[in-house]
């Protein structure tokens, strides 16, 4: 049985690598065995099973002491998350002997919550999911989430009002970011800035590709990133960690907690600071502003008897940045100071009730506050230029019921209510939205070969009305080593605040932008002032803004070609309708326009992702990743077909654009990939992770005047970054690391997230291992 509400970790080991050991020894009570990985490091909390239903865990040093109760058992099985389980004949062992477990390839048995809101392993899920575990996070040497995600196949980090993620060719606006299962708020121009997230308290990152609006609603159109933070696994622990790198960038972390008497407490504090960098020194101001940030987190969990559990999660984030810019006024450039502030607070209480084995009831509350403030002023005169405030409050209450229908069917039902307010300089008044939703999901393991997940969610929102999002996924296990899966699902994204509420007037250029909710009133005001010359769009269409919606198919397979070779592939096609863009609504007497937001475009992104993992030997592992991406705006193609699109050549003369000129959407690389080499040197104990990350040429913006990508001059060159991390872990978990990013110093002015070559050093000290 693989579908379980609360699977114990024993059950997640599925892949068929069961190695027999042939050594001689008759185990006696009191004798010790050590469970270790291939590098000789103990595997803490591995599980030893014997007889019918007996099991025990090894201690934090991987040591297992044979208990009296084992009696006459002849064979034990050792299981550990992430490792191939192993059966050992007791008579074949020597006292004190090490039992080595071989690691699974590709983190296939890691638990994933994001995909179904229940615990399922990667290998069991009929949709493309990936888990980035702590070891993988560690070896990137990254301090912020963007630095970890950018090394994964098929994920790009694109700079646009912050480090935004791109997945399956869709931008940050369409990717839901969850922190311990709860959505994170606070986007700027649609971008969720991944640099806001410190990675040092992350246990693992779940990456779910393809639409998941069937369980998450809005924003989960391209996929979902679920960040799972650590919990206390030991009775008492405390760790300090520090990293320093080029550009005076420093990352300091302290974490600790207890796990005893039914209490689970985990606390975390991180301070990050950087001097930023400047790719264009001739222009006043930095490419990346200097800033410092504090992140604090507290997780408290308490088991109340066998059936009840309470958890509360608190997180706070504070960021302050300072920079300069040059403002041109009447032919001269004046220096201006800039200051930015971001604050974030998350409070998530959860109550869990397990009346019996077949039911699980969860009540979650979630409140998030996000605010930004930016100000600028002339350095010389001190005169203020601009102050912008943004305050967002998001509250959600959700009730979820999981019911085990039969031993291979699990039904999940959920309902929720949410309330959101926003108050900002560019929006009038305080704005409030209300929404409610229901979702239903059925997971079914039909026979040994089929694995099905189907679900549907209905959202009702005070702004954009109702939305129904179905999804169905199936996997067929052809053999122990080969499976194929397909999923078809709908996604949607609600209009954001800007699209609904913006009230913006560019005084210098004389144009106006109104959110859909304000356009009627805004245009009426302009008309009353006699500023409108001509209305360009039928006024009955004003304010009719629907959610952006998509259909997507994902299909792919997993092939364990050999014990040491794993091949995974996924093909996708996203078909997005009602994309929201600005369009002029009225021509003004100044000759400028007033704009608002409308459902205009229709876009397709499609492609494939391939990952190959090859364990050459116990010390050396090679992985290759590649993504092919094709994206296109269907309206542009239609216009090209009727001969309505032209371009200017380098002499600025006009010619007609053909389909073969068209390069799709901006900021998408047709080809991208990575090559990673992990080497463990047994003599020194040094782990080496060498990674090459390639991002192919991508369109950075329009040059030849027709606003589409169709000219070789509009492409930024491809770039290959070489990153290296060397680390050594000592007996008690003390770890040192040294490394560098972009060692070949590849620069691209169109990628402002890339500062060029950087070096880092770091150390991690698990204090509890020293003061026990």
């Amino acid at each position, binding site marked *: 049985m693989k579908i379980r509400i609360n699977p114990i970790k024993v059950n997640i080991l599925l892949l068929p690598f069961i190695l027999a050991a042939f050594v001689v020894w008759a185990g006696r009570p009191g004798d010790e065995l050590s469970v270790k990985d291939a590098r000789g490091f103990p595997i803490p909390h591995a599980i030893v099973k014997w007889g019918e239903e007996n099991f025990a865990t090894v201690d934090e040093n991987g040591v297992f002491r044979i208990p009296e109760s084992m009696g006459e058992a002849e064979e034990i099985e050792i299981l550990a998350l992430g490792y191939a389980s192993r059966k050992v004949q007791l008579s074949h062992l020597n006292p004190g002997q090490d039992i080595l477990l071989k690691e699974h390839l590709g983190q296939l048995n890691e638990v994933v919550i994001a995909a179904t809101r229940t615990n399922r392993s990667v290998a069991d899920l009929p949709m493309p999911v990936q888990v980035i575990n702590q070891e993988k996070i560690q070896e990137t040497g990254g301090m912020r989430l963007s630095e970890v995600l950018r090394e994964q196949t098929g994920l790009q980090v694109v700079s646009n009002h912050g480090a935004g993620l791109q997945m399956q060719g869709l931008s940050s606006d369409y990717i839901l970011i969850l922190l311990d299962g709860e959505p994170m708020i606070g986007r700027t121009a649609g971008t969720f800035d991944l640099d806001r997230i410190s990675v040092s308290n992350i246990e693992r990152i779940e990456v779910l590709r393809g639409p998941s609006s069937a369980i998450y609603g809005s924003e989960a159109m391209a996929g979902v990133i679920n960040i799972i933070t650590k919990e206390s696994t030991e009775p008492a622990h405390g760790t300090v960690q520090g990293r320093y790198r080029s550009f005076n960038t420093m990352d300091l972390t302290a974490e600790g907690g207890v796990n005893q008497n039914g209490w689970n407490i985990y606390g975390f504090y991180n301070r990050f600071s950087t001097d930023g960098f400047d790719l264009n020194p001739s222009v006043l101001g930095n490419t990346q502003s200097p800033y410092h940030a504090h992140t604090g987190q507290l997780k408290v969990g308490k088991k109340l008897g066998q059936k009840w559990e309470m958890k509360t999660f608190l997180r706070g984030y504070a960021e302050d940045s300072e920079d300069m810019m040059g403002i041109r006024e*009447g032919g001269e450039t004046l220096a201006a100071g800039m200051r930015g502030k971001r604050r974030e607070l998350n409070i998530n209480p959860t109550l869990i009730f397990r009346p019996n084995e077949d039911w699980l009831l969860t009540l979650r509350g979630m409140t998030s506050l996000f605010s930004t403030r930016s100000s600028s002023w002339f350095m010389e005169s001190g005169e203020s230029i601009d102050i912008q405030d943004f305050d967002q409050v998001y509250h959600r209450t959700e009730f979820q019921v999981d019911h085990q229908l039969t031993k291979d069917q699990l039904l999940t039902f959920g309902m929720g209510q949410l309330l959101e307010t926003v108050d900002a300089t560019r929006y009038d008044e305080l704005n409030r939205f209300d929404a409610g939703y229901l979702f239903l999901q059925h997971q079914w393991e039909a026979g040994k070969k089929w694995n099905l997940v189907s679900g549907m969610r209905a959202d009702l929102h005070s702004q954009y009305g109702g939305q129904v999002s179905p999804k169905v996924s199936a996997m067929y296990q052809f053999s122990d080593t080969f499976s194929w899966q397909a999923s078809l699902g709908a996604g949607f994204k609600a209009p954001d605040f800007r699209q609904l509420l913006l009230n913006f007037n560019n005084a210098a250029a004389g144009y106006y932008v109104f959110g859909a909710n304000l356009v009627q009133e805004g245009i009426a005001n302009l008309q009353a002032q006699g500023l409108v*010359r001509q209305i360009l769009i039928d006024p009955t269409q004003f304010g009719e803004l629907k959610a952006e919606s998509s259909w997507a198919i994902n299909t792919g397979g997993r092939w364990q070609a050999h014990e040491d070779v794993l091949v995974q592939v996924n093909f996708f096609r996203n078909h997005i309708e009602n994309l929201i863009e600005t369009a002029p609504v009225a021509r003004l007497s100044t*000759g400028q*326009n007033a704009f608002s937001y409308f459902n205009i475009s229709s876009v397709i992104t499609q492609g494939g992702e391939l990952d190959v993992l090859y364990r050459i030997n116990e010390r050396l592992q090679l992985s290759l990743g590649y993504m092919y991406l094709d994206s296109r705006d269907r309206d542009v193609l239609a216009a090209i077909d009727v001969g309505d699109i032209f371009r*200017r050549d380098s002499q600025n003369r006009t010619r007609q654009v053909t389909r073969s000129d068209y390069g799709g959407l901006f900021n998408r690389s047709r080809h991208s990939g990575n090559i990673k080499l992990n080497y463990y040197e047994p003599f020194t104990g040094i782990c080496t992770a060498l990674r090459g990350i390639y991002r192919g040429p991508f369109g950075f913006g329009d040059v030849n005047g*027709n606003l589409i990508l169709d000219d070789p*001059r509009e492409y930024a060159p491809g770039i290959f970054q070489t990153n290296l991390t060397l680390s050594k872990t000592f007996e008690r978990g003390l770890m040192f690391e040294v490394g560098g990013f972009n060692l070949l110093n590849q620069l691209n002015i169109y990628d402002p997230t890339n500062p060029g070559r950087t070096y880092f050093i770091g150390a991690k000290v698990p204090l509890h291992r020293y003061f026990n």
Partner: protein
Amino acid sequence: MKKQFCFYSVALLCLPFLMACSEDESPVVVTPLEVETVENLHAPNDVVNRQTGEVIQENPFQYFSFEQNGLVESVDGDWDIGFKGTTIIVNSGISGPGNARGMVMQGLFSEMSEVPSDASLRVDTEDVLAIPHGSGNGWYNYNNTTHLISPIPGRFLVFQTNAGNYVKMEILSYYRDNPPMDEADFTTGGYYTFEYVLQLNGSRVFE
């Protein structure tokens, strides 16, 4: 302020026509119209305070005559169109005392052989200029990231001059020395480079 105008004919373009005629029984030699090029016509916009939108320094329109292929001193002269910043006016209606008209056309400048009979050439009115102003409305797009003005490919202008002759005109660049758009520097804006074909005989046909 120094203005530089260049004129050159495209002699090569004549060859196919001349050769085609040789097969006719009674050859009529058609003289193709010349494509004139004007470079770096400097027409700076008013200087505006970026914060308030207030005009700090007002600049004059530059008045141009197609027949003279050059600038005309003042608004009272015999001019056809005027430039200031990205605004183009015609000598009629609210902009001037004359009879000039204009409109924006879609397509390839080089391929338009005749002004269509249903083409509605307009005068400048309070409501709308013959060549509408604003990004995307008339002849240019404005990119608010790079602050660059790019002539919209596939859009060109058709005018009827003050004297009643038809002209087709394509703006090549808004920047000094007609740079490729990827090399344009937004601080060198306000320098028009354009090409035009003038039919002096009053016909709508450019051949």
